[in-house]
């Protein structure tokens, strides 16, 4: 079914117990973080998810790859309802969706070498040619194969983030979630990582959800943009439409607030 989106989300709700407001006796009130989101992520799309801090971007991302369980609604991945699958039932699906994290230091186990970090998920899923796949993943992200034997603390921030990317793509997933993956990096590493990501999306035909608060990055990379405000989608359209004809007032605010560099003078080339 080529028309079916890779991910279909309907009326997605997530609420967490708000422990700060918990009365002495009784239950903590629920904090509504995602308030009924519906959207599709088509195959091969690069969807930018933007919104202010605390708008629920990370919560949405972590729910999509089922690090969190939704309180309501449904998530379908490739037609399969994964909304309430438990870890054991999710395991076969895990290979098909991967995540790249914001903080590359905390997302790499400091006690494992690079080869172990990339190979871990491969072994877990019983893939063959593990060592060759590790080498290929390192090639893909432009790191020398000799880095296999390094520990994370022996790498720079940009190199660590590439290891995070290598770990994700080594699994040959269909969907990758990238949560603010360049916001912890210096400007030149940011540009390199973004270029790399752009190339990988093309070469590997990935479907990517790219969370960021930086609209200039989204404009460069994404085919679609979804704007989140306090747990609700206020805008969801093709990138060009969002930038040229923003519908929601909040989107216009975001566009005005962020100094947009001229995309033609690609400042990260």
């Amino acid at each position, binding site marked *: 079914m080529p028309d079916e989106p890779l991910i279909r989300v309907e009326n997605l709700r997530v609420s967490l117990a708000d422990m700060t407001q918990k009365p002495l006796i009784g239950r903590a009130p629920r904090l509504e973080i995602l308030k009924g989101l519906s959207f599709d992520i088509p195959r091969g799309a690069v969807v930018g998810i933007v919104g202010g801090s605390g708008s629920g971007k990370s919560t949405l991302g972590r729910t999509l*790859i089922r690090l969190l369980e939704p309180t309501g609604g449904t998530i379908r991945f490739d037609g399969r309802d994964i909304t309430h699958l438990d870890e054991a039932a999710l395991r076969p699906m895990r290979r098909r969706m991967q995540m790249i994290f*914001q903080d590359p230091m905390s997302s790499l186990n400091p006690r494992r070498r690079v080869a172990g970090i990339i190979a871990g998920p491969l072994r877990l899923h019983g893939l063959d040619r593990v060592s060759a796949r590790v080498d290929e993943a390192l090639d893909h992200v432009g790191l020398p194969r000799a880095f296999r034997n390094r520990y994370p603390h022996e790498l720079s921030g940009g190199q660590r983030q590439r290891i995070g990317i290598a770990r994700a793509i080594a699994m040959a997933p269909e969907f990758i979630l990238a949560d603010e993956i360049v916001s912890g990096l210096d400007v030149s590493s940011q540009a390199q990582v973004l270029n790399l990501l752009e190339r990988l999306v093309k070469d590997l035909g990935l479907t990517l959800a790219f969370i960021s608060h930086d609209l200039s990055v989204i404009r460069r990379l994404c085919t679609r943009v979804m704007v989140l405000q306090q747990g609700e989608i206020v805008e969801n359209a093709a990138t060009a439409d969002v930038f040229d004809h923003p519908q929601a007032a909040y989107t216009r605010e975001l566009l005005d607030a962020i100094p947009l560099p001229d995309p033609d003078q690609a400042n990260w080339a």
Partner: protein
Amino acid sequence: MPRSIPGCVMLDGRAAIRRRLGLRLWLSGGWLALVLLAALLAPWISPQDPLAQDLMSGRLPPFWVPQTEPGFWLGTDSLGRDVLSRIIWGARVALIVAFVAGTLTATIGSALGLIAGYFRGWADRLISRLVDIWMAFPPVLFAILLIAVLGPGLMSIIIAIVVIDWTRFARVIRAEAMNQGAMDYVASAQVAGMPRGRIMLAEILPNVLPTIVALLSLEMGISVIVEAILSFVNLSISTDQPTWGGMIAEGRISVHQAWWVLVFPLIALFLTVLSFSQFGEGLKDRFDPVLR
């Protein structure tokens, strides 16, 4: 895109730090190795029978005093028993208690702490409540009560130490496991589909191991002290088996006539306890590739 240069990494000062840590690790490790050897080889290396009494040669001074009798290097006590031999044999009891009680305490406490800190939820509430209740008991009273019930003996001492001190590991390791559990590498393992129990053992445990090792070493030192204290108040094993605590108790009585009976076991005890704590700290630093 600029290629990354393979040989070019951040310089790290680990070599320098390692050198500074070296001395502490070597000194404490050296002393502990010596005590361990003494304990293992006691029957072959102790110059005298530690229990042999000879009232004719009571309170002989150490070897450097001119008119002493040769063969009793650190002198004899009031019953004429060789102090060095008794210290060597006493190392056995000290180390058995240190290793058995330390390991058991560390294993039980760390396991509960890991489970509470990583799984959270009801497991954490249960374990944390238990720790709180446990710590409400005054430990010394608790120990004496336990030994009164169990009867004096090596086993009782070990059980008392484990029962009292597991909370130290549980608390510290729970907090560490909680910190580690919030790290993204744990989320990443979950994204990869690793089962929860395996995440705890394969991802989190290696990262809290340096802390466990440091606490374990400290705990071994504490066990040696506890054993000595209980021997001192005569709650340890039978009095004819030489223990450092027992020797200190006996030496205290005749300290004005024969100071060496008190001072040498005291030095052995002090150095051993100090070495355990220093060794643990040193190991923790060396264990850590990151050097937090």
